[in-house]
C-alpha cells in the first residue's frame, strides 16, 4: 500500500493552529505518510510542529461556513486544534489523518521507516540480554539455571526464548508445568533478593478448574524456592471471589491442600476496561477547566485512579515486605500474568533493589519485566484516553506502573538516578514512537517482525550521553536501602506532569526546576574548585617545606 493513496490533500496553507496557553499561529500544514507537520511562516519566530500519526488518538471535525476545524487529541493527552480554510481540503485532511492514524499493519508503522540521524554507539536491542542478567545472578547463587525450553516459543508463546528457573527442575517438568498454567506461563524467576536469598517468581493462574486438578511438577517447582521448613507467599492479584469464579472457566488458584507451605494473599488490582474507564474519566476531569472545586474533587474521586494507584502500591509493598522483612519467597500471579502481575513484581523491585533506581537498571527492568515478560504493549497501548471505540484490550497498565514509580520517586527524590521526564518519555514511547521497542505483544512477535534488524531501539537513542543528560536527576545519590513509600491517601498526588501537562501554564514550575538544577550544579563546581585550590595550597606548602629541608 502506498501512503500517497491515503493523502488526497498533502498540503494546506493559511492553517491556524490553536494550543492551550499558546497564541494561535498561522502556517502551513503538510501531511506525510507518518507525520502531520505544521510550520508557521512568521519570520521572527518560525515554529514547527511534528506530530506522529500514530500519536493521534481521536479526531473531530466541524464546519462554520467553509472554514473547517479539526480537533486532534493525542495519545500523550495533548489536544490541538487546526482551522483549515476550504471544506474539501479540510475533509480530505481529516480523512487522511483518520486513515493514517489507524493503520492495521504493524509493518507500516513509522519505526519500520525511521532512519536515525544519530550515530548508534550501542545497539539497544542487545543492551539487556537475559544471559547477562543471569551471569550476575550466578555470581551470588547457584540455585538457578537458564532454560531454553521455550526456544521456539512453543511451550509458552508469550515468554522469551530463555527463562530462569530453579536448577533442580528439568525442562521436561517445565513442559508439564506449562500445561498446568494459563497460557503456558509457568513460574519463572522475577527477582532474587541478594540480601537474604529470597526469590520472587511470577506466573499465570494454575488451571485447577472446578475439580481441583493438581500438578506435582508445579508444586515441586515453586517449592524449590523455599528453604527447608519455611513458608512462602502466593500473592494473587485478584480478590478471592474472582479467583474462585475463575475455576469455572478452567482457571483457579493454589489450594492449601496441595501447597501446604504457601500462604495465599488476595489483592484487588483492576485491569482492562475498569482501568481504561478510570483513565478516560480522569483525563476528562483534568481537561475541564470550568469545574468548580466540588465537581473537580468528585470527578477525581469518581475516576478511581488514585485508588488504583494506592492498591497497586500496597500490593507491591506487601510483596517486598514478604521478601525483605519476612524472609519468605513469593509467587505473584493474577489470571494471565501479563498485567497486574508485572506491575506488582516490577514495583516490588523498585522498592527492594537500588539497581532498578538507576537509569540503566530501570531500562533493564522495563525490558525484563515488561517487554520480555510479555506484556502485550501493542494491544494495551493501541488507544489512549480519547478513543471512542470500545475495544476491550486497551488499558493503561504500563502508565499506572510508571505513575506508581513517580509516586515513590516523589517520596524519595534523591534515590533515583532518573527524573520525571524519563518516566514521561517512556509513557509517550509506549503509545507512539519512532522506535521499535514497544511494538508487538511479546518476544515471539518481535522476533517474527524482525524488529531488531528492521527498527531502531529506543535504548540506542536514549543511552547516548547527550540524551541521557536530560533524564538525569541532579539530586541522585545512590542509596542501597530498601525504600518503603507511604501509601496514605494524603501522601499520594495526581501526576501533574502527565495529566495537567497541557492544561496549565508550566513556565514558572519549569524555571524553578531549572533553578534547582543550577544550585546543584553550582555546588559541584564550587566543590571541585575548592578541592583544586586546597591541593594547590598543599603543594605549595610541601614545596616550601621541602625547600626548607
Amino acid at each position, binding site marked *: 500500500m502506498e501512503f500517497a493513496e491515503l493523502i488526497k490533500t498533502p498540503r494546506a496553507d493559511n492553517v491556524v493552529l490553536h494550543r492551550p496557553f499558546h497564541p494561535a499561529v498561522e502556517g502551513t500544514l503538510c501531511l506525510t505518510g507518518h507525520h502531520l507537520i505544521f510550520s508557521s511562516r512568521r519570520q521572527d519566530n518560525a515554529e514547527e510542529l511534528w506530530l506522529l500519526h500514530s500519536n493521534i488518538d481521536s479526531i473531530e471535525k466541524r464546519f462554520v461556513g467553509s472554514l473547517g476545524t479539526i480537533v486532534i487529541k493525542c495519545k500523550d493527552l495533548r489536544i490541538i486544534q487546526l482551522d483549515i480554510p476550504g471544506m474539501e481540503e479540510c475533509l480530505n485532511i481529516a480523512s487522511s489523518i483518520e486513515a493514517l492514524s489507524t493503520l492495521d499493519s504493524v509493518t507500516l508503522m513509522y519505526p519500520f521507516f525511521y532512519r536515525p540521524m544519530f550515530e548508534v554507539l550501542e545497539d539497544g536491542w542487545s543492551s539487556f540480554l537475559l544471559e547477562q542478567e543471569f551471569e550476575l545472578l550466578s555470581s551470588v547463587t547457584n540455585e538457578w539455571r537458564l532454560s531454553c525450553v521455550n526456544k521456539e516459543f512453543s511451550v509458552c508463546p508469550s515468554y522469551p526464548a530463555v527463562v530462569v528457573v530453579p536448577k533442580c527442575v528439568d525442562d521436561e517438568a517445565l513442559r508439564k508445568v506449562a500445561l498446568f498454567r494459563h497460557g503456558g506461563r509457568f513460574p519463572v524467576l522475577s527477582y532474587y533478593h541478594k540480601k537474604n536469598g529470597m526469590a520472587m517468581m511470577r506466573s499465570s493462574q494454575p488451571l485447577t478448574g472446578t475439580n481441583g486438578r493438581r500438578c506435582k511438577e508445579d508444586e515441586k517447582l515453586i517449592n524449590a524456592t523455599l528453604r527447608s*521448613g*519455611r513458608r512462602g*507467599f502466593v500473592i494473587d492479584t485478584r480478590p478471592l471471589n474472582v479467583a474462585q469464579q475463575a475455576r469455572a472457566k478452567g482457571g483457579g488458584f493454589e489450594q492449601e491442600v496441595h501447597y501446604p507451605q504457601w*500462604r495465599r*494473599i*488476595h489483592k484487588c488490582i483492576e485491569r482492562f476496561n475498569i482501568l481504561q474507564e478510570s483513565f478516560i474519566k480522569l483525563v476528562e476531569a483534568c481537561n475541564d477547566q470550568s469545574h468548580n*472545586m*466540588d465537581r473537580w*474533587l*468528585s470527578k*477525581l*474521586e469518581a475516576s*478511581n485512579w*488514585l*485508588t488504583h*494507584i*494506592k492498591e497497586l502500591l500496597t500490593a507491591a509493598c*506487601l510483596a517486598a*515486605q514478604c521478601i525483605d*522483612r*519476612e*524472609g519468605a519467597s513469593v509467587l505473584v500471579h493474577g489470571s494471565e500474568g501479563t498485567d497486574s502481575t508485572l506491575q506488582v513484581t516490577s514495583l516490588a523491585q523498585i522498592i527492594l533493589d537500588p539497581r532498578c533506581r538507576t537509569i540503566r537498571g530501570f531500562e533493564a527492568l522495563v525490558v525484563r519485566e515488561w517487554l520480555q515478560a510479555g506484556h502485550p504493549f501493542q494491544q494495551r497501548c493501541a488507544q489512549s484516553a480519547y478513543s471512542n471505540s470500545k475495544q476491550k484490550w486497551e488499558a493503561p497498565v504500563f502508565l499506572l506502573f510508571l505513575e506508581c514509580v513517580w509516586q515513590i520517586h516523589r*517520596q*524519595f*527524590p*534523591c534515590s533515583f538516578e532518573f527524573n520525571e521526564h524519563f518516566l514521561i518519555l517512556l509513557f509517550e514511547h509506549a503509545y507512539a514512537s519512532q522506535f521499535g521497542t514497544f511494538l508487538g505483544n511479546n518476544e515471539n512477535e518481535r522476533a517474527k517482525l524482525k524488529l531488531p534488524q528492521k527498527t531502531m531501539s529506543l535504548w540506542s537513542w536514549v543511552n547516548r550521553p547527550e540524551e541521557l543528560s536530560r533524564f538525569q536527576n541532579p*539530586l541522585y545519590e545512590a*542509596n542501597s536501602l*530498601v*525504600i*518503603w513509600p*507511604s*501509601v*496514605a*491517601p*494524603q*501522601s499520594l*498526588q*495526581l501526576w501533574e506532569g502527565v495529566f*495537567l501537562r497541557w*492544561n496549565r501554564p508550566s513556565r*514558572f514550575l519549569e*524555571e*524553578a526546576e531549572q*533553578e*534547582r538544577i543550577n*544550585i546543584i550544579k553550582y555546588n559541584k563546581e*564550587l*566543590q571541585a*574548585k*575548592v578541592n583544586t*585550590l*586546597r*591541593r*594547590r595550597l598543599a603543594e*605549595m*606548602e610541601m614545596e*616550601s*617545606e621541602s625547600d*626548607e629541608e
Partner: protein
Amino acid sequence: QVEQVKLLDRFSTSNKSLTGTLYLTATHLLFIDSNQRETWILHHHIAAVEKLPLTTSGCPLVIQCKNFRIVHFVVPRERDCHDIYNSLLQLSRTAKYEELYAFSYNPKQNESEQVKGWQLIDLAEEYKRMGVPNAYWQLSDANRDYKICETYPRELYVPRTASKPIIVGSSKFRSKGRFPVLSYYHKNKEAAICRCSQPLSGFSARCLEDEHMLQAISKANPSNRYMYVMDTRPKLNAMANRAAGKGYENEDNYSNIRFQFVGIENIHVMRSSLQKLLEVSGTRGLSVNDFLSGLESSGWLRHVKAVLDAAVFLAKAIAVESASVLVHCSDGWDRTSQVCSLGALLLDSYYRTIKGFMVLIEKDWISFGHKFSDRCCQLDGDPKEISPVFTQFLESVWNLTEQFPQAFEYNEAFLLQIHEHVHSCQFGNFLGNCQKEREELKLKEKTYSLWPFLLAEQKKYQNPLYNPDFSPELTLLEPNTVSFNFKFWRNMYHQFDRSMHPRQSMFNLIMSTSEQNKQLEEDIKELEAKIKQRNGQSDVVLAKEQEQTAHPAPVALKTPPCFQKEQPAMPVNDAVRTIEGSNTADNRYSELVSEFSKAEPAVVSLEYGVARMTC
C-alpha cells in the same frame, strides 16, 4: 510526672506504641520515650483533651493541638490519667491575658533590645513606602484616642477631601464604627485598596456622609472615575443582614460605584469546614475515595479557592483597570483582612519578602483588629468565636508559593512557624483582639515581639529558589485558580505525622546545598587569598622559616593539613539524605497482612506464620 505512659501511633491499626514518661511543667507537657526522644507540647497549643473509656492496657487520653498535632497517650492508672486530664484542662484554659506564656517568657533580652524588637515593624514607614501621605491621601487624627472606632488603630489614612464630619458621620453608619480607610496604596496606578465594615443600611437607610466618603475615595484616584465595592459575603448573607439593620451599599445611592459580591462564607462555616477536614484526614486506614469525598464535603478547598479568587478580582481591578476598591464583609476584620492582604500580596512584591510579609500581617491583621484572641481561643471564651481565618490566609499564601516557586523570599517553614506562634501566646504580637486592648495590656513592655526572633533565624525561612527579579516591583502576580491547582496542605495538617511525608526532602536538600554554596564561595575567596599571599611572599616566608631553627618537624609531609580538610564537603548533606522511615513499620501497609487475615480466616496470618517460622 507519670511513668510507663504509652504514646500511640495515631494512624496505626495495631496499637503500636512508644513507652515513656510524661511530665507536666508550668508551660509545657513533656513526654520522653525510651529512646530519650522528647515531645514538647505547649499548654496554650492544646485545643481539646479527651479521656476515652478505660481499656485493658490503661486509660487513653487524646490531646488535640491547635497546630494540628494529635497525641494519643495511654496512662496505666486511671487516677493518674484523671489527674493529668484535670491539670491539662486547667492549664490549657487561661482566664486572664496576664497568665499567658508571653508574660512569663523570658528570652534573655535586655530592655533596649525588647524596645528595638517592637520597633522593627513600623507601619508609618510602610505607608510612606506605599507613597502616602500624598496629594490625595492624608493621615487622619480622628481616631487618635480610639474615639471613633475602638478596633481600628490610632493612625488611619483617608482621602484628603474626607473632612472630620464626614468621617464621623460615615463611622456612625458602619458596623462597629469601622468606616472606610486606606489599606494599600498602589503608587503606579494611583489606586487604593480601602476597607471598612458593612453599612447600617437596613432596607432603605442612607447616610450622606458615607456616600461622600465613598465619593472621596473614588475622587482620590485621578486615573479612574468609578470604584469597586466588594462585599466579600455571599449575597444571601448580606441580604439577611438587612433585616438586622445592616446590609450592603445600594448602587443607586452611591455615585460611580460598581458593587460586587464575592461569596466567601462566614467564620462559623469555616470553623466547621476545617473540623470536617480534620476528621477526615485523621481517620485511620483512610481510603483514597473517602479522603477525596471528605475533602469535597468539608468544602475547605472550595473556601480557600473563594478567598484567592476574591483576591485576584481585587488585584486585577487595581492593576488592570486602575480602579480603587473598597472591601468589606460584616465587621470587616475577617474576610476583609484576608482579601485585602492577599490582594496586596499579589500586587506588591515587597510583601513576598520576609520583612514585607511581617509588615503585611502587622498592617492588615494585627493593626486593623483581626480578633486573634477570639479566633485562636487564647483565653477561655466563646467557642463560636473560634475560626481558622488566619490559617486560611496562610494556606492561600502557600498555594501561591506552590504556583510561583521563585516569587517568594520565604518558604513554607516560615508560614508554619507563624501559624505556630499565632497560637502559642509566647510572643505579644498576636495577643488580644485590637490595638487598644494591646496598649492596655502594655504588651510592648511586658512581652516580646516575634518578628526579631524570626529574623534572627532567617536562614531557616529563606526560599533557596527565590529570585528577586522574578517580578519587577508592582507587577501583578496572576495565579491560576482552576480547581486542580488547589491541594491539600499536608505539611500543615499533618505536620507532626512523620510517616506521611516524603522520606527524603528535596526542599531541605536544596536549602542546605544553597547554604553550602555560600560557604564554599567564602572558602574559595579565602583559599585564593592564601595562595596569592604565598605566591607573593614565598621568598619572605622562606627566609623567615629558615630563621626559625626550632621549626616543628614536617608533619605535613605525611598528611598535608589541607588534604585532611578535603572531606566530601560538609556533612550536612548526609543528614539531609538520611532516609526516615526505611522501616515497614512506619507505613500502614505493614499491617495489611494481619488485617487481611482477619477478613479471611482461610489464610493464616503472617504474624502467625512468623511465629511458626521462628520456633
